[in-house]
Structures are given as C-alpha cells and as structure tokens.
C-alpha cells in the first residue's frame, strides 16, 4: 500500500520509493529510505502527512500527498 493509504500510529516498513531520482535523493538525505521503519503521525484531509523514521529516531518530516502516494509501505513485522 502507499503511505497515503496506511493508517496512522502504526509501525510501517518502507518497501520502495517510486519518485523521480531528484526527489528520492532528497528523501534519502532526510532519512526516508527503503527498509527503514516509520510511523505516520498526522494526516490532513487534503492528503499531506507527517512521518517519523523509527529506525533512526529522526525528526518529523512533512510530505505532500503526491509524495506520500509514491512511497510504498507495509506493516512492520
């Protein structure tokens, strides 16, 4: 499922990022990368989300709806 469809406050694992290379680079440098676990903390009605990387215990990152659609996640084991 994509990050937009995932529920809030449940540990998720990033499987793939489908964005173009420039965006992927930016996401990587901000700590959003495949294989890491994250949690979706907030979701707005218009689709924007705030996530936090649980693997690195990193800061919160806001993503717009289009980017949240490009991040494929699954429930973390």
């Amino acid at each position, binding site marked *: 499922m994509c990050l937009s469809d995932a529920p809030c406050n449940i540990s998720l694992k990033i499987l793939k990022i489908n964005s173009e*290379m*420039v*965006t*992927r*680079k*930016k*996401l*990587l*440098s*901000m*700590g959003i*990368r495949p294989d890491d676990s994250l949690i979706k*903390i*907030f*979701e*707005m*009605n*218009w*689709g*924007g989300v*705030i996530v936090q990387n649980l*693997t*690195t*215990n*990193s*800061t*919160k*990152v*806001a*993503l*717009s*709806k*289009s*980017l949240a659609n490009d991040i494929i996640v699954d429930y973390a084991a």
Partner: protein
Amino acid sequence: MQHKTIVLVGQPNAGKSTLFNVLSDIKSSTSNFAGTTVAIKQSLINVNFDTYKIIDLPGLYSLNPNDPAEEVTVNFLLNHHVDLIINVVDSTLLSRSIELSIELIELGIPMVIALNMQDEASRYGVRIYNQKLKDILKIPVIPTIALFGKGVKDLIDTCDHVITRGYSKPEFLKFTLHVENSINVIQEDLKETQIPNNIDSRFYAIKLIENPQIAFKSLKSFDRKKSELATQQIQIEHNTDGFEVIAYERHHHAMKITHLVSELKKKKAQPFAEKLDSVLLHPLWGYFFLLLFFIVYFIVIFQVGTFISGLIEPAMQTLPHYYEPLKLISPFLWYTLDGLFQGIAGSIGIVLPYFLPLLILTSLFEDTGYMSRIAFLLDGLFHRIGLHGKSVAPFIMGFGCTVPALYATRIIENERDRLITGVLINFIPCSARLTVIFAISSAFTGPIWTAFIFFFVLLIIAINGKILSYFFTKPTGLILEIPNLKLPSLRTTFKKTQFKVKEFLKVAVPYLILGSIVLGWFEYFGASKILNSFFSPLVTNVLGLPEQLGSTLIFGFLRKELIIVMASQAMGVKSFSQLGLTTAQALVFTIFVILYIPCISTFAVFWKEFGAKTVVLTTIFSITMATLCGLFFKIILNF
C-alpha cells in the same frame, strides 16, 4: 593579511547560526526553522593571540545539494581553502547528522565536531558518550549548548589547538570491499589530475560514483571515461544507482556508530511539546489555532503600536512651534528644519511603535518552530494556488522584510516554485508596509479594516499565484523537516530585537530623515507641484486621492515608511491624523501603497536573484495590479 578560515557546517536547524552569534560579534538571523541561513556570513575572531576568519554556511543534509542554499555550501567547501570545519551536530538527531559527518570527513579537511543541543537530547532521554564518538571518528568531539554559550570556549580552544599544532587526518570509514575497490581504482586515475584546494582525492573518487556532476565541476581536466567503468560495475552489482549504494553504506555506518555511542534511556513521558503538536497539527484544531494565531498576532501589534504611538506622537507635534518664527525670517531654513523634524517624528512617533511589537512577536514565534507547522498546514491551500508549503517560510519572512524573504527562496529546490514565490513575495506586506497599514488604519479606519486589508492582500497573492501557475508546469511536492517545538528564549528575542532596532535606526531612519528634508526642499523650490502634476492623472483621476500625495509615492520607492512620514508634510498638516482623508480614500491609498512597487533594496536583491527581465515584468505587473485594485476600491466604496 590572510587569516586562517574556520567554517561552520551542519544540517539545517542544528544551531550553526546560534553558535556563530556566540563566536562572533555579528548577529546572524536564527530561528527554529530549517533553512534560516541561506547566504554566507563571516566574521573575524581572536583566539589566544591568533585571528581567524569564521564563516557560517547554509545548512545542508548532504554534500549532494538539493537546493540553491545547499549549493552555496558545497561550492564554498570545494572552491575555497578551508583550514578547519566545525561540524555542528544536533545531538537529538545523531544518526542522520553522523551521515553528514562521515561525508565531511571524506573531504580530508581538519574537522572538529560540536555536539550541540545536549540539553535537548537529554530531555528526550538520549545519552551520548562523547569520548566513544571521538575514538571512533578520530576527531575532537566537544559537547555544546550554543544557545547558552556552554562549551563554546572549549570548542574554540580545540579549534585553535588543531590548527596551530597540526592535525592527523581522521580515518576514512571503509565501504564494503567491492565499493572500496572501485574507489581505489578511481583514486589511482585521479593521481594525474590536479585536485583543487586541500580536498582529498578520495572525496572526488566517491563523488564520481555517487554524484559525478559535482566532481566534474571541480575536476575539469579529468577524463570522464576513466571513472565510468568502475561506476557501472557498482551499478551492475547492486542493480541500483551509485548514489543509492553510497548513501546506504553511509547510513549503515552512521547507524552502527550511533548504536555504539549513544543509548536511549527509558523514554520520559511524552514531552509537552508533542502533546501540543497533536493539537497544532490536528486536521481541524490545527487550522483553528492557525487562524487564532494570526488574529492575536495582528491585534497585539495594532493595540501596542497604537498605544505607544499615542504616547509619543502628540507630544512630539507640540515642538514645531519653537521654530515656527523661522518661516518668515528664513523660509529655506524653516523647510529644512521642518523636514528634519518630520523625519524624526515620523520615524520615532509613527514607524517605530508598530515596528517594535512586530519584531518582538515575530522573533518569539520564529524560535518556537511553529513556522514549519504553518507551512505544513497551508501546503494543501498553497497547492491550489500553484505552490507548495515550502513557500510559506519565505512568505512569513516577508512580513518582516522582503529582502531576506527573497534570499530565503533559495531553500526551494524547484526553479519554477522559486520564481513564483519570489514574484509573489513582492506583494506580502513587509514590516514597513504593515506599519503603513497600521498607521493609516489607526488614524482613519479602525482595526477591522486592518484585518480586511490584510486578507484582501492575501487574496490578491492567491489570485496572482493562480495566474502565474498557468504559465508553468505543476509544482513539486513538499518535503519539509518539522523541528521539535521549543520555548523561545527571551534573551535571544531581546538580542534579535535590539539588533534589528539598531539596524532600523542606522539604515532606515537616515533615509526617512533625508527623504523628509528633500521633500521640504521640493516644496520650497516648488518641485513638488511638478511631481504632483505628473502623477495627477493616476493619483487624482484614477485613484481619487489628493494630488499632493503624488510626490510621496516617489519617496516610497526608497522606504515604504517614508510615505506616512511625508504624507502629512506634503499635505501641509502637523499630524498624520489631520490628513483629512475619507475612509474610502484611506483604503484606496493603503491598498495602492502596499501593492504598487517594492522598495529599492528589494528591487536590487530581486534583480540579483532572478534577473533584470523578471524585475521589469514584475514591476509592470505590480503597478498594474495596484492601480486596478485601487480603482476597484474607489468604485466600490463610492458607489
């Protein structure tokens, strides 16, 4: 004399500018928002009889720049001789910060780590073993709390020690064997190439794998074909781009190091900041508090400004009768003195009373970290006008001053979004324009019209954004760091306000006084009449305003506040409230002044950042918009 250079490098919001402020005598802008520093700032500091040049560079997440501000830092590091890097690390984000530290070590430049915000880390239950980190990275690690100046003396003594007594290069962290083999092959090929400055060839060998464009910019004589084979080999083995391979390896190292040098003690109960976040970012309550915030923000500025102005201005206006007799004896001297007096009275009695609460409130608000939350909340709305939430930060800075707001557009990665944001910022009422709004509303219309004007300007920005976005492709998505909420420091707020008031008195007030004197001379020589006649078709016929206000528009190009300082002078009255404007005229005048043209400083920076063509087109666009809006209000209000 050539001074040794120390640069501050770190991820956004790690506290570089706060540290720079403590180290230097320059007060650089700081806030709890990623990307506050977008240009290079430098100062000289004395340490143990040596003088060093210290440079504050814009924050960056990695040495693979994603936006113009990050490019500034990378270009500086690669194209200047740097004697020492102070890597400012946010202790609360150790793992992510160490990824950048590893990359900086690859440069081969002497480095010291300032492990900043230790107090914040312990608040979040994180304990860091500094000595272990030092042993692993083989570089000095100094714990600091830059906000309170803690550890700064130790840090600067260590820097002095490293520079003066020599330095052994840190051990480069090894990648997996096959990546190392490729790095070694490229490093061999680089032996015949001249590496600029004191950068290690290993850095360029790695960059040729992960981001060749960066390397080719510096290594102009290097034959690209030489590195291609080794890079392709990595891509084939990993079935992914070289950039991702290197990024994963660094990430893995950083995670391992973080695991070794830190421990997360039993996490304390959910900090208050996180509880507050659940309200501020709530899909419904978040917008309610945002609206409430803006209402309180403007009411406080309006009320405090009106109160202070009410205390100062009437008292000052009793003074002109002391030089009144000069009007008959020496009219030229009287016009000069009156210009001087009106300039001082306008600056102190009208402008400063509104400017001061605006500065204090903005500073308090910037330090809390709420700005990025506003950016997120407004992202959906901004998408509707063809932008995204990252434009919010420059927009909000624009309420202070348009010049830093234009520089702040450098944090926007996409050139299209940056251009639209830059054009729209010119319509944001800066502190000078806000002062015009507050002063005119206070004298003629009242606070409800202030809010109305403010929301009308926002509507104009939205319409213009929509118009501009038709000419460009779709905006990119928002990726924005949301820093932890913090209590603002009263000391920092006081210092920032003090610095900005000093700057206002030093830079703006002389303009206001000089402009006022020149207007006095214009009136003495009758030049005002010529200017007023020239502008009369616009001012009188189109906007329906008194002809005398025409000449003030010219001076408004120098400083917006000049308009209110000079309006009473031009109309020949002693107090601003005696201008005799009707409510409709006051509104038309305010709307026109806010929108018609940016000030000369904005003009220059806009030219520098976006080019002459954009400046000319934007100026024509804004004058047209101001005229149409003014005309619209004249028709509606006189209907």
